[in-house]
């Protein structure tokens, strides 16, 4: 009779379990990874090298697809993602949003890229957003327990089966509005054409509240924002420079 020590049992069992987990992960598809892999930092600021590969992973959609103009609305306070069709809610899913230290970018964005199976922390689908100060997206996850919490580096996480369904409906160019939290930048700089940032988003939202048409609050100080600032300055007797300085911030009650 071979007597096997308890340590060896645990060791062999662990190796077998590990092999199973790796095998399941590599199988991909809609299954969750069982491997306790620390995912790459999702939603980081600044440049990040990444690559993606395409697979034919398809998800069978059981519901009728939405019709009309689509828009994604993400409410970070309720941690929900709603797909709107012609202004009406089509479907709503839970999601995870950025941690307080790495908040999700409040503003109005667009989907600029779509890809499959990044794997790991990015799950089975990726929607890239045109946030000018970092790489953010809507993607799947290998941490389903985080859904419904503020856990990410700023990206929006969904269950893989949900993001796969969403992926079927969206296109590059689909608008994405992230809302649900007030932003309080310091407005410590003079903003001018070409600037980007959270302060630009806050300025654009405030201009819109005040009745000016700035197009999208996309954090880019472009011609529409310049025009709105000049109109504001002209209307209130200030020199119409098109740059947002302290007078503009106080005029808009941002300071």
């Amino acid at each position, binding site marked *: 009779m071979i007597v096997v020590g308890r340590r060896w049992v645990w060791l062999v069992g662990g190796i077998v379990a590990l092999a199973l987990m790796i095998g399941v992960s590599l199988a991909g598809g809609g299954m969750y990874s069982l491997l306790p892999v620390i995912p790459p930092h999702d939603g980081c600021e600044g440049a990040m090298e990444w690559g993606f590969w395409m697979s034919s992973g398809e998800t069978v959609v059981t519901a009728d697809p939405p019709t009309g103009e689509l828009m994604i609305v993400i409410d970070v306070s309720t941690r929900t993602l709603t797909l709107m069709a012609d202004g009406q809610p089509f479907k709503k899913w839970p999601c995870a949003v950025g941690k307080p230290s790495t908040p999700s970018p409040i503003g109005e964005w667009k989907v600029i890229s779509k890809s499959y199976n990044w794997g790991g922390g990015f799950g089975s689908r990726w929607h890239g957003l045109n946030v000018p100060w970092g790489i953010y997206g809507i993607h799947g996850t290998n941490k389903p327990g985080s859904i419904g919490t503020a856990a990410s580096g700023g990206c929006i996480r969904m269950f893989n089966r949900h993001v796969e369904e969403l992926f079927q409906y969206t296109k590059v160019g689909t608008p994405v509005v992230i809302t649900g939290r007030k932003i309080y930048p310091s407005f410590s700089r003079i903003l001018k054409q070409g600037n980007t940032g959270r302060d630009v988003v806050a300025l654009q939202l405030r201009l819109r509240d005040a*009745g000016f048409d700035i197009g999208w609050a996309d954090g880019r100080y472009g011609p529409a924002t310049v025009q709105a600032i000049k109109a504001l300055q002209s209307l209130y007797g200030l020199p119409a420079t098109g740059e947002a300085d302290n007078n503009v911030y106080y005029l808009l009650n941002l300071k």
Partner: protein
Amino acid sequence: MKAVTDVKERVGRVWRATIAIGLIAMLLMALMASGCRRKVGDQDWSFVPDPGAEIDPTRTYTIELWDYDLPISWADGNYQTFVDEVIASFTELYPNVQVVYRQLDYETGSEELAEALREGTPPDLYMNFGPHHALHPRLQLPVEGYLSEEDLAGFEPIALSLLSYKAGIWAWPRWLAVQTWAGNRALLEEAGANTERIQQEGWTWEEFIGLAEAVQREKSHVYGLVTNPKPVLLFNHIMRGCGASALFFAGEGAALYEVAAQEPPEGSGGGEGEGDEGEPPAQDIAPPVPGWSPGQIETALGLVKELRDKSLLPLAGRGYERPLEYFWEHRAMAMAGFGTWVWHQSAWRQKRIDKRDLYPAKGNVNVVLLPIPHLEGQAVAAPVSCAALIPFRQAEYKGDDHTRVVMAFAKHFITGMGAWPAAELGHVPPLIMDQQLWHQEIQLDDANGRFIVDYCRQGLAPFGADPTVAQAETEFRESILTPALEGFIGGDIEPEELVERLTRGLDRLDPVPRDP
């Protein structure tokens, strides 16, 4: 041979004569044809449409309005929503009328209008912020024929004066914008000011300087005055405080559009307060007169220099460019060169503070609107301008019935709910009956609201909408006054030189014929 040559010459002469006669005939016909289309009004400012022309119910009229976006919004809409509602309410009354509405860009709108006027294709109505409203001597249409006596009596007199020229009224007033000073009530009262009395009766320069110095003694970081970075605005205010009501003198040849002091009718927004009955009439108060004299210019520059030398006004590069920041951060006792929207802004700030969207370190400023300080014994002409809808005809005139439709729409646009944009922007509706609505809708603080209307009634328009005076004023302000004042504020030009420069410029540009 000779005979053949003679015949050829004769034939040639006949052909040449025939061609010449033909050309002359065509020219005469063209002249006659244009003469048939000639209408009274080929002289400048003389076109008079027939206000009684019948509107043809079988004809579809299309009228065009060029406007600018206004920063007005509420939960369910914005200025465009408001315009859509006004147009819809008009087309309900006139189903055979289509209104084409276009919003212009603030930067390029006036150029677009100028281009359209050059081409003879202006819109039927154009929103003009002023201050000058006589824009085209042949294509602009007078409106007084479409106003009854009762209509005329319902307008603030200053509104009509600002739009009058050569016995005509040349636009439909939308709102009156008056520039006042804004005071920090708490700072003023700490220094011993009776803000209610100042608001009602005015204050002298001595009183203002005294209060500013008192505030600064207690709080050295607080300035007596901050001002709009455009120096011409403050200087214009100071000149008014010295008794000038306009840049140029009114000579014998000038038409003066005097505004007679009027008691407001019952139910108007202003003048509801009880006056002191039995108070003796003011004595030795000099009325404001048109014209900047060298003496007045020198006095005004002396006052600016006093503010600068006593550090009551921040210097360029040290806060001069940040008036709103200093005012809202309790670093200025008073602010000049802005409109009455400042009190409105105080209310907006309070809403944001209440919603915890704004956290000013020292809380909100309790704003009291104040008149421009004046020299002892001098009345002040308040700086008032009028925004208005200007009606135009096109070079290919569409008919008096079309003009009647345009005027009906303009009247509809400025009355009733038309007062709402004025209220939202903090301006005064020109129609007295709308001022009551204005007070109710915007829940205006009574004292500030009464003051705005009363101060508007202290406005004067000695030259009305006279375009030659307007052009001269614009040229003086842009090419002479603004650069000179910037040099003075920056310390590059001494007062004596500035007085001379301005006086020379006024003499050169004076459009008013003087007595020989």
